[in-house]
């Protein structure tokens, strides 16, 4: 770069015309001096004429300027003039004692080829080479720079060696005549790159040679000297750093993996919980679905049963209605034909008319129960008295019809006052008794009542109808109080359904069981009715 600027000066028109001094030249010199100083520190820009006389000398502020002096004593002037090529000088000590190098370019007329003079710069070696290495710090890497003669232009190890030749005693003493370094330096000055490790008493050093080539010739020779303890230290530092980095990496990796594992475990737990939750929801959903399906299946089954029961009811109702009608119809015709047999036919007509009436009443009662319009005409009465009257009626029927059944009544000792619909309760008792007679072709029927107190505020009467008949068919035992349930060839199967609703409408309960204990047979029907306080009811016998 500097050579290019100097060459630019040499090739400029004024210089090409041999104008090497004067104010214009000084100005150009100052401009270029300033320009070069922006690149590196130079302390003088000189112009020498063809007779080696310095015509112009631009120097740094405070420095002494030399003009009109003969520069023939400077080798670089002679070399430049002789070679007519740019010269990188060896080191030389100035009048002021500062060790320098010079870069000089010949001024040659491009047309005639005539040598007109030299333009060049002087550079203090210490400041120049300090730009390219840590010269002063002996504890670290530094540069040693030689000129072609082996003179030290820059020495990082010891400044006092500057300007001394490597092969002088001063330097050799300094390096304790170390043959390795000497050999290395000799090779360097021959232009050979290379390196060596040696120790001349100041610690082991590792030095590398770098010749600086200009225009095909080595002009300066650089040795980069590195105290190996620095290398080792740095290697150790690097190793330590790498170890630390590796350790950090391992620790970081382990931490990352651990974190990842923890995260995965946690995530797994979360997923597991979610799966459990979803599974539970699914199971619940399936359960609900299953229940729904079961409910639908049950509803469907109930519907089928209901449909079957309805058809059965129509069939049975048809029979139950038509049978007494048939009897009434036929006996009426017979009565017309044989009026004299009125006493024989009239009871049959009457009997079947009553049967038809009972049937109609039962159907109407069921309609009332299901439409919730069954009304009770309540009054206070003695339950035992009502039952006794019914028992007596049935005893007459048993005798009259020649049933082989004996009927017994065991009333409670206490009067059992109830507030109820007498006619309806009588209907319940009649229903239970007629059933007992129907299913006991031959045997006994026991009706009993008792007061059940149990120290409760609500004592009740328990009515029991026990027979020794065929008992309740297991096929219908669970639904015996439902509609249309009967094992009889007569009746619609409404009696127990009506009785249950009447008892429950009175706040009582009704149930049944088979009398299987101790080899017995037959069925037992129970129902309860709440009792009223005898004293309170004494003045209130009828309450409809």
């Amino acid at each position, binding site marked *: 770069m500097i050579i290019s600027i100097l060459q630019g000066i040499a090739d400029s028109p004024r210089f090409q015309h041999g104008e090497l001094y004067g104010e214009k030249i000084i100005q150009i010199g100052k401009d270029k001096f300033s320009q070069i100083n922006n690149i590196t520190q130079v302390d003088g820009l000189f112009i020498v004429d063809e007779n080696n006389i310095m015509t112009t000398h631009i120097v740094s502020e405070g420095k002494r300027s030399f003009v009109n002096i003969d520069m023939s004593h400077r080798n670089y002037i002679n070399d430049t003039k002789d070679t007519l090529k740019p010269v990188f000088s060896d080191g030389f000590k100035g009048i002021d004692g500062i060790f320098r190098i010079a870069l000089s370019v010949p001024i040659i007329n491009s047309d005639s080829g005539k040598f007109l003079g030299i333009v060049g710069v002087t550079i203090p070696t210490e400041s120049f080479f300090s730009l390219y290495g840590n010269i002063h710090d002996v504890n670290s890497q530094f540069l040693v720079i030689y000129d072609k003669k082996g003179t030290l232009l820059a020495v990082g190890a010891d400044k006092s060696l500057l300007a001394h030749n490597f092969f002088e005693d001063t330097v050799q003493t300094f390096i304790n005549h170390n043959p390795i370094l000497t050999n290395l330096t000799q090779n360097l000055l021959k232009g050979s790159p290379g390196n060596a490790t040696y120790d001349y008493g100041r610690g082991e050093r590792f030095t590398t040679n770098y010749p600086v080539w200009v225009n095909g010739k080595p002009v300066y020779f650089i040795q980069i000297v590195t105290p190996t303890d620095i290398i080792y230290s740095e290697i150790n530092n690097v190793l330590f750093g790498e170890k630390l980095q590796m350790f950090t990496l391992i620790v970081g990796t382990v931490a990352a993996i651990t974190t990842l594992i923890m995260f995965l475990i946690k995530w797994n737990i979360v997923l597991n919980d979610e799966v459990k939750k979803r599974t539970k929801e699914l199971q619940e959903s399936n359960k609900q679905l299953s229940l729904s399906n079961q409910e639908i299946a049950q509803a469907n089954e109930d519907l089928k049963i209901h449909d079957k029961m309805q058809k059965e009811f*129509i069939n049975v109702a048809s*029979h139950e209605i038509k049978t007494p009608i048939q*009897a009434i119809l036929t006996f009426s015709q017979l009565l017309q*034909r044989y009026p004299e047999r009125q006493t024989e036919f009239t009871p049959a007509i009457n009997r079947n008319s009553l049967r038809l009436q009972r049937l109609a009443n039962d159907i109407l009662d069921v309609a009332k129960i299901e439409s919730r319009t069954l009304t009770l005409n309540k009054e206070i009465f003695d339950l035992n008295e009502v039952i006794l009257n019914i028992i007596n009626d049935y005893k007459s029927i048993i005798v009259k019809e020649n049933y082989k059944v004996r009927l017994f009544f065991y009333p409670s000792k206490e009067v059992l006052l109830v507030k109820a619909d007498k006619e309806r309760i009588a209907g319940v008792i009649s229903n239970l008794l007629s059933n007992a007679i129907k299913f006991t072709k031959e045997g006994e029927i026991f009706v009993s009542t008792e007061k059940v107190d149990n120290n409760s505020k609500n004592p009740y009467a328990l009515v029991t109808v026990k027979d020794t008949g065929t008992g309740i068919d297991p096929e219908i035992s669970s639904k015996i109080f439902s509609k249309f349930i009967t094992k009889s060839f007569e009746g619609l199967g409404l009696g127990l359904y009506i009785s249950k609703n009447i008892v429950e409408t009175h706040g009582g309960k009704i149930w049944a069981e088979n009398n299987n204990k101790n080899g017995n047979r037959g069925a037992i029907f129970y129902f309860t009715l709440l009792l009223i306080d005898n004293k309170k009811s004494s003045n209130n016998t009828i309450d409809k």
Partner: protein
Amino acid sequence: MGENNKILLVDDEADIALAFRLGLESNGFSVDAYTSSIKALANFKSDFYKLALLDIKIPEMDGVELYKNIRNRDKKIKICFISAYDVDHHIVKNYSACIIKKPITIDDLVKKIKKEIQEHD
């Protein structure tokens, strides 16, 4: 009316059995009436009755079973089922028997019986 005017009548409803017996007897039939199918079968005599009038829903042995037993013992006897059950008519429609629905007047019953006897004579 032919020589054989004997009718076997089985109906578990006593009033019905009595009423039909009296009604048919007043129209010249000789009627053996039973409320028990077991007893009716026990007393059954082959080639004795011209026609059997059987209720279908009878305890112990229903009308269909009674029909089979009678038919096994008497191939010539005319048999009619008589029932107040609507569905029973579907049960017995495949048997060689006429079906009479209750309620029926004596006159109509007599007409049906005579028709049944004449058709198969």
